[in-house]
């Protein structure tokens, strides 16, 4: 009996003891109400700025181009040099620079710049500018290779075809040159300047009557 009372007491108060013991443990997580989603940004918040940026070298390249289109070649070349100081290995900028050198009449510098660009990296415009500098240096055979390739890749480019026709006539390959002139005149029958050059090649080719007939077509009646 002496032991029964405490045991009964323990059994009877078991809940309280259990509660007391449980309080020594960390509380169990309690279920809670679902949290609300975060509030959407208020309409007054600013529009997120575009993250795109244009680096200075890119903007300066565009400036250099704009100056070249205005035929302000010295200013343009000065800007190109600043860009190339920052990006010396950029072949696209380098051949642009070479073209502007050529437009500004600095043929030798243009040739040096453009011939330093790997041929596979040359754009059509860069390749044609290089060919023009070759013509200015009297390197007709090398220029002819470029004009032929570029003319074949764009049948509508009558200017390149004309340059090729001129080289052929200067190197006395009249028949081929005259054939190209005829193609150009088919595309541009009203071009009196081309017809006069055609007439000149006819004369060099020993066909003075044909030459005179073509020249008459370029004169008012």
């Amino acid at each position, binding site marked *: 009996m002496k032991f029964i009372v405490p045991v009964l007491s323990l059994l009877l108060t078991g809940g309280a003891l259990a509660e007391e013991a449980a309080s020594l443990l960390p509380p169990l997580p309690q279920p809670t109400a679902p949290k609300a989603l975060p509030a*959407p940004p208020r*309409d007054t*918040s*600013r*529009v997120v700025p575009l993250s795109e940026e244009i680096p200075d070298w890119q*903007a300066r390249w*565009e*400036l250099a181009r704009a100056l070249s289109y205005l035929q302000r070649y010295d200013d343009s070349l000065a800007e190109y040099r600043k860009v190339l100081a920052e990006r010396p290995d950029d072949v696209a900028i380098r051949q642009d620079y070479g073209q502007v050198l050529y437009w500004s009449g600095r043929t030798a510098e243009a040739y040096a710049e453009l011939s330093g660009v790997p041929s596979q990296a040359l754009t059509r415009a860069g390749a044609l500018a290089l060919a023009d500098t070759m013509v200015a240096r009297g390197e007709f055979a090398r220029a002819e290779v470029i004009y032929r390739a570029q003319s074949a890749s764009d049948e509508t480019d009558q200017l390149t075809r004309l340059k090729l026709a001129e080289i052929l006539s200067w190197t006395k390959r009249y028949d081929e040159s005259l054939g190209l002139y005829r193609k150009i005149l088919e595309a541009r029958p009203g071009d009196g300047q081309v017809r006069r050059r055609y007439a000149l090649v006819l004369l060099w080719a020993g066909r003075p009557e044909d030459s005179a007939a073509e020249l008459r077509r370029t004169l008012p009646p």
Partner: protein
Amino acid sequence: MNTWAPRRGLSVRTLARLGDLQQQAGNYAAAIATYQLAAERAPREPELQLRAGIVLAWEGRRTESLAALRTAVALNPDRRLAQLYLARVLMWDGQFAEAVNEYRRVLPP
């Protein structure tokens, strides 16, 4: 039918984001409409004018693009990207002298 038509119930910020997504998907006409709707509601927000100006230029609507970009620059004269796009679009429009002035304004000498 333009299934990307902007919704008038959206916030300006959300409209800007929608316009960005339309632009990224290549749906420039819808993006322009969305930016313009947002700009009607927030006419002094330069970022909307900038976005509209860029996409208008890509659509070949250069006169409208230049107007939007000029507004963007006027609203935030320190926003370099707006100044550079203004210079670019002037160049695309053949206004080379004006483009040069804008580039020079932004670039260090």
